[in-house]
């Protein structure tokens, strides 16, 4: 591996790159988001852009598409120096991006979402409605999606929203297509369809930049990769010449340990018991979790996992059923406050809309879930907030300038850690985590797995929902699978393999016995 500090490997220069960025510097208020970042992508390749959370990938993309103007650095489009004043200019130059965690406009229809702005078919300022729907349908069909065109985007599931946003990116005649963690909230069918589309685009000569924390995907899909660390480009090389461990160690600047820590030994004391729970999407669910146990919950998108966790955490009302913590039954639909006091804490699925207050500081975010803990007689103690924040930031290695930095300025992974920190400060008996590693880099993932284990070792019962089967198998002691709101199967981690789990995911509950 040729590590050239801040330099692109000479091999990359043999053809005129479709898009090249050299020595890009971008600072925010003292944060060096990019420090001599370089990227060079060729026509007809899928180019992975890798790096841990906060490495500067999203910032680089925003510079490449004219959203941020760099403090210094040069960009070339097909060998010509360019400056993109705004997104439109970049789009017209054929550079189009699907941005991280920004997808659809909820209040307008699917078709309108797909063909926004300059893409809207029009004549003389008038929208051509028929053409709009036809184009939108074609685009959706090209990614094998069937979403009603007239539906409001607000009514779509998260998966559908991502696919609609992807269709929008395809609507532009992109010569350079940049995708910032497109698969973070997708399940495997969509991922496969996405990959097929990306490959066919590549074959048509489109240059694709692909950001993902799922390295298996990168090795399956990409031709070359660029690794960033702390705002700098560390290396660009062919995927064929790379090994996954080496990529990881380059990303994090040290050699990777085991991704999944060793399992612990669960006790037999029941921490959480759920009996005959019924809700909108959840039907007759019963199970127990023990102290010190890690229970994984799998299933297809929409199978009701998130709703189950939301009911358990008191965030959503339910129709019937009983929940008890350490033998003590909770009142019906207790509300989040009482569930938290009883020891159930939820790390929700949608970080930005449910997990953190973006416009508030890290310490204020942590305080929100711990108001009673940091106050006496209704008065809040700044020292105690600083104390639990300091501890949380240290324990979870939150990367930030200070505890007063706004969460909106943190990278996705660090935002997720803030959510974890605020809930862990409650010292929950039962920790519910909905897709806790979505959008999180491998290094941080390993940290979170270790943290989960460590919590379990301390007696916490942990329930994690995940759509990634290897993750489910790797970190759980026991796995239950949901199908259309019901538990369709349960296996211990030792006997789990992906095939069995998949069968349960589709509700093929033929084989096993031990349903609770």
């Amino acid at each position, binding site marked *: 591996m040729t590590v050239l500090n801040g330099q692109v490997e000479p091999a990359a220069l043999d053809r005129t790159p479709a898009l090249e960025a050299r020595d890009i510097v971008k600072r925010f208020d003292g944060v060096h988001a990019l420090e001599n970042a370089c990227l060079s992508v060729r026509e007809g390749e899928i180019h992975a852009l890798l790096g841990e959370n906060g490495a500067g990938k999203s910032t680089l993309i925003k510079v490449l598409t004219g*959203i941020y103007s760099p403090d210094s650095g040069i960009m070339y489009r097909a060998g010509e120096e360019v400056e993109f004043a*705004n*997104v*439109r200019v970049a*789009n017209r130059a054929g550079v189009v*991006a699907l*941005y991280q965690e*920004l*997808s*659809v*406009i*909820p*209040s*307008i229809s699917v078709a*309108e979402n797909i063909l*926004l*702005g*300059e*893409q*809207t078919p*029009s004549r003389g*300022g*008038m*929208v051509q*409605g028929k053409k709009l*729907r036809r184009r939108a*349908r074609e685009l*959706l069909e090209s990614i094998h*999606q*069937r*979403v*009603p*065109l*007239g*539906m*409001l985007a*607000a009514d779509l*599931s998260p*998966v*559908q929203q991502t696919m609609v946003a992807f269709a*929008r990116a395809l609507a*532009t005649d992109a010569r350079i297509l940049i995708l910032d963690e497109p698969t973070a909230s997708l*399940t*495997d*069918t*969509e991922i*496969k369809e996405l990959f097929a589309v990306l490959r066919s685009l590549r074959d048509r000569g489109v240059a694709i930049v692909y950001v993902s924390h799922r390295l298996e995907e990168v090795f399956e899909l990409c031709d070359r990769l660029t690794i960033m660390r702390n705002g700098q480009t560390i290396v660009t090389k062919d995927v064929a010449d790379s090994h996954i461990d080496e990529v990881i160690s380059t990303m994090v600047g040290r050699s990777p340990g085991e991704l999944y820590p060793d399992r612990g030994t669960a006790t037999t004391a029941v921490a959480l018991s759920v009996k005959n729970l019924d809700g909108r*999407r959840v039907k007759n669910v019963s199970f127990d979790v023990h102290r010190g146990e890690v229970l994984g919950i*799998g299933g*297809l*998108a*929409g*199978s009701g996992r998130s709703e189950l966790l939301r009911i358990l955490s008191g965030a959503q009302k339910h129709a019937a059923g009983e929940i008890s913590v350490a033998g003590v039954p909770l009142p019906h639909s207790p509300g989040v406050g009482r569930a938290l006091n009883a020891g159930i804490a939820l790390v929700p699925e949608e970080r930005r809309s449910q997990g953190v207050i973006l416009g508030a500081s890290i310490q204020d975010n942590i305080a929100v879930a711990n108001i009673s803990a940091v106050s006496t007689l209704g008065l809040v103690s700044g020292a105690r907030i600083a104390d639990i924040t300091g501890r949380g930031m240290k324990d979870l290695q939150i990367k930030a300038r200070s505890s007063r930095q706004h969460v909106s300025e943190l990278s996705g992974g660090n935002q997720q850690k803030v959510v974890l920190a605020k809930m862990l400060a409650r010292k929950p008996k039962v920790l519910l985590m909905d897709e806790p590693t979505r959008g999180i880099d491998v290094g941080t993932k390993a940290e979170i797995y270790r943290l989960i284990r460590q919590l379990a070792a301390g007696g916490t019962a942990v329930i994690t929902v995940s*759509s990634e*089967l290897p993750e489910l198998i790797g970190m759980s002691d026991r796995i239950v699978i949901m199908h259309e709101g019901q538990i369709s199967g349960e296996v211990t981690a030792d006997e789990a393999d*992906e095939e069995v789990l*998949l069968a349960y*995911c589709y509700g093929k509950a033929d084989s096993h016995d031990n349903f609770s």
Partner: protein
Amino acid sequence: MITSRNPGLEDLTDTRAIPRRSVGQTLLASGTVLALFVLVLFFFAMRPDVFLSFTNVRNILYQVAILAIIAGAQTIVMVVGDFDLSVAATSALAGAVAASLMLSGVPISIAILAALIVGLLIGLANGLLIAYLNLSAFVATLATLTSVTGLAFLVTEGTTLFNLPTEFNNLGQGRFLQIPLPVFIAIGISLILWFVLRFTTLGRRWYATGGNVEVSRLSGINVQRARLLAFTVAGLVSAIGGVLLAARLGSASAVQGEDNLLFSVAAVFLGMTIVRSGAANLVGTMVGVAIIGVMSNGLNILGVNAYVQQVVTGLIIIAAVTLSSFKSRGR
């Protein structure tokens, strides 16, 4: 590997087969429209001889015509997700400018043109402050409201300007087929705005911007220009309303039509409840305007004391909106 289908969604093999609710269905499903019907029925039951008579319906239309225009302006701004507190002040200034120019001998058409340009410029100023200098719409238009009212006082010298040319007054007081001209003008402007919002790329851009500025910006919409245009159009339309109000009253004062501000906002809010997306929309606004018009006319006809009317007006607005929020929560 997990493979999945679209969650919880009926299998929609043909996307065109989705039952689209017709406009009629949408309207009937809305609590706000229901509230309007209830009001009409109530007043009709109380005064069957009068309330739905031709004269009275014409009366109602005449009384709300200018509010409808101002509410149309407000709708556009609220489509892009902002507010305009200066609509009524702008309309008053436009009326005052037209009147004062006509009184000083300027031809009617030029005076009207000047008034419209003044409205347009105020809208432009609002738009620049909000879209390009990133001021909050609330502060910016609050400030404009203050300054513009001051200007209107300066233009009118604090008095009521009158003795406007008859042809000008006819614009507001003339009739065609027994219906006052302002009603036609209000309908015409509403249709144009409805058309622009619904069928033009500009309208789409406004809705996208109002739905989510950031996504719109990242999708290559020039959101700054979209917002600028929305405020400019609102200024222009408000000015039309103001000129018409001056013609309708045959006079112009600095505070004329002040209550159109709050009523226009109320109308748009009432109208927002009739669509699923909760976005401002012209049909809804007109329903809101109708509620306000019917309410005030009906209470007048019943001879309800003015102060009690005010109390009741507030309660009816709350009832209408609550009704539709129950409805939509039912989903």
